[in-house]
């Protein structure tokens, strides 16, 4: 018995289906691509429009007010590193990709997470799917996206959105499940409307866990965006890929260090916000 006799390829069976999708739903994919490109373009222009020094100053002031002094100094240093390593444009492209992807991930994951926390059946359905999604290596996410949207920024951002959903969804569910019962009962007893309970009791109490989820979502999205440089997403990932493929180690290392700077920047900013929120925790 040799393998060759039985060889078959599910890919070849699926490929015509994909072709059919591409031929018949072309308009839909083009529409999605255009919307994503438009949003990304706006964010990117907004980041690149002010002079780099001005943007660093804005980030510094914002971090100073929303997080702590140390975080602000740190953030400014990291951005300055991106500027002085000559990769400002690529860094801003990466930040634009990450922020748009994270926004959409959160917009999808948050309501689903709340739903899963409320309804047990939904939670049970999600759990195995999330398990699989979190074990599969990130590369695999790029494949369907590239098949449907070809190369470029659009498949990158779609793969990143899908990749960023599980951590946020998990921690949202956790945050809302962990709410102390007595607080909710207090709200009900004092006759608060469900809306008031959600915004005045549940959200503030759940905020620390939610921010942990956001932090994870951001870091995973960054990893994915960098990887997506391989499918033509642009940004720092593309610079790393260029460094790797042309053996220009200086460029590759510079881009790698800039990625580290951005990872640390995003991590500290979201953690800084978390620390700011921690003392607000009641109980």
């Amino acid at each position, binding site marked *: 018995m040799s*393998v060759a006799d*039985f*060889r*078959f*390829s*599910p*890919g*070849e069976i*699926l*490929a015509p289906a*994909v*072709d059919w999708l591409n031929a018949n739903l072309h308009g839909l994919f083009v529409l999605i691509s255009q919307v994503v490109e438009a949003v990304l373009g706006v964010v990117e222009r907004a980041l690149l429009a002010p002079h*780099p*020094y001005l943007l660093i100053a804005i980030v510094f002031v914002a971090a100073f007010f929303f997080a702590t002094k140390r975080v602000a100094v740190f953030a400014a240093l990291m951005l300055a590193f991106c*500027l*002085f*390593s*000559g*990769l*400002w444009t690529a860094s801003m492209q990466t930040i634009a990709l990450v922020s748009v992807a994270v926004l959409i991930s959160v917009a999808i994951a948050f309501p689903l997470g709340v739903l899963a926390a409320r309804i047990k059946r939904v939670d049970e359905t999600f759990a195995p799917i999330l398990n*699989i999604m979190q*074990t*599969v*290596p*990130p*590369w*695999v996410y*790029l*494949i369907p996206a*590239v*098949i449907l949207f*070809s*190369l470029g920024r659009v498949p990158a951002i779609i793969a990143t959105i899908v990749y960023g959903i599980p951590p946020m969804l998990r921690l949202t569910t956790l945050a809302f499940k962990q709410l102390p019962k007595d607080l909710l009962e207090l709200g009900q007893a004092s006759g608060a409307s469900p809306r008031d309970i959600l915004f005045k009791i549940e959200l503030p109490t759940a905020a620390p866990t939610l921010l942990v989820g956001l932090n994870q979502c951001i*870091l995973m999205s*960054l*990893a994915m965006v*960098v*990887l997506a440089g*391989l*499918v033509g997403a642009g940004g720092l*990932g593309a610079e*790393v*890929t260029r*460094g*790797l493929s042309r*053996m*220009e*180690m*200086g*460029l*590759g*290392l*510079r881009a*790698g260090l800039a*990625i*580290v700077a951005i*990872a*640390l920047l995003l*991590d500290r900013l979201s953690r800084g916000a978390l620390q700011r929120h921690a003392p607000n925790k009641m109980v």
Partner: protein
Amino acid sequence: MNTPDFSSQFDEAIDAGLSWLSDHGEVLFDAANAVLSGVYKGVLWCLALPPYYVLALIIALIGWRAIGARFAVIAGLALVFCALIGLWPETVSTLALVLTATLLALVVAIPLGVVAGLAPAFDRVVDPCLDLVQTMPPYIYLLPAIALLGYGPATALLATFIVALPPALRLTSLGIRMTPRHFIELGEASGVTGLQMFFKIRLPFAMPSIMAGVNQSLMMAFGMVVIAGIVGSGGLGESIYGAVRTLDIAKSINAAIAIVILTMILDRLAQSAARSRMGESQ
């Protein structure tokens, strides 16, 4: 834009430094390359020796012992499926890469984790380094590896090793530190030697945590090995990379299916190993 630009000086310095390193440290890097690819080739040879159905049967048997009959049947059939879609050699070399890298990482991580668990001073030095390693996107570990070792499986192994190190080290040190206080006191009171204290009291309590670390390291290594296809590691990562670049839909779907199958099997096996350890110690 008239911002100061240090990039060209930086690039030149790096290039000069690298050529100096590869001139003067050639023996060292050649040796590292030889050791890494030697170990990899040994593991690959062992795995590729039996025909596909024998290896599938062996993994199914392990699955049967560890998890249950249903998992064994599914895992065996899924592996045969990998062979039927014509990706068996790639699947085996991916498996060999993951196992080699995880093994090397564990050999380094577990002793270091034990030291970190016993000596808080060492832990305070290691902890921020691990934080940094885990914050960076795994992709960039390929850069230093490729600069020093060139194109091939040794590079993939080195990068995977770096990625797989932190979880095992962290969870080993955590497990060692979590030994219940009264058991240590009990040991001290009954006058055990340092070695007995370690092997009979601390290690058994740390075992569940260490096994959880092994599981996490294995999964991190898997993710990295697939990425490392870019630097010519061979295996499924490289087939996917090639297929995506040439937009060969059929081939990329096949490779993705094989990767998902392999991930699921490894994850379930490692998880059950961690769980059975936990049951033993309780």
